[in-house]
């Protein structure tokens, strides 16, 4: 894998429930929590998009440099970010 992926599950009130890192890239010290910021910024976008579509899987809703954020929304608005 080219880069590491971060998987987060967020409840409907923006409370993170689960977080996992998937990947084989050694963790960079300076950007240790970068993916958390990226996913946090994507929260707003997801909230808006969740109302426009009735599909559950929203692909590639946001880009940051070369990282792409996609999200799976369940019926109870529980968001799973990658």
């Amino acid at each position, binding site marked *: 894998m080219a880069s590491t992926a971060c998987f987060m599950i967020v409840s409907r009130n923006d409370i993170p429930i689960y977080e996992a890192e998937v990947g084989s890239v050694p963790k960079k010290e300076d950007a240790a929590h970068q993916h958390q910021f990226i996913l946090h910024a994507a929260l707003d976008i997801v909230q808006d998009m*969740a109302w426009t579509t*009735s599909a*559950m899987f929203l692909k590639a809703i946001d880009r940051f440099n070369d990282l792409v954020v996609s999200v799976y929304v*369940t*019926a*109870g608005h529980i968001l799973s970010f990658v």
Partner: protein
Amino acid sequence: MIGVGKIKQYTNVLDRPLSKGKQEVSLSAFAFLFSELVQYNQTQVDNIAELERRLEDAGYAVGARVLELLCHREKGNRRETRLLGILSFIHSTVWKVLFGKVADSLEKGTEHEDEYMISEKELLVNRFISIPKDMGAFNCGAFVAGIVKGVLDNAGFPAVVTAHFVPVDGQQRPRTTILIKFAEECYSLNARLALRLPDIHVLDQLKREPEQRKTSKNAKTSNDFTGWVLVRNNVTPLSCST
């Protein structure tokens, strides 16, 4: 998992199909369980309102889970984003799974725009319950009202849901009606645009926007700033024009 006989061995537990479980529960078992639930709560509270609230909270937890489960099982992973959609989902799918039949009717209230009613000739939970005279207005349908509230809240449509008795002529037992009153939030700008319903609030906002843009016409940067503000306010059709 539930101990159904191992018909086929899968190498990986994740590949095994999810079992649907037993679809039917015995009615008498449920009646006993529900009566015990009501009795237990009765010993804990002092007045009717508190008892109704407790039943509603119990139903809320059920509703939250039922929403996720049914969206996955029945609707093939499609969420509900429309108000009418979620109401008809409750009225048919949820009722069918929980009570074995669709609800009797779904009506829109005439006095207020944000009120809807699901009514049922005889609510399953009330079938084996008799209310003593001194607890006149109490309705065990508060449990079902809690289920509906759980479904609506978790789908993003906050509402106040209550159960009422409506006497019907020519019938001994009154009809039960679940009254759903949606909160203001459901009618917010964003939701209205998503639902594509015309609304006075939307028209007012749209009328105000051109004046906002006129004042910032002098500098290009301020135009961009207005555009950003519009996007943050979720008025998506207008953000494109800036």
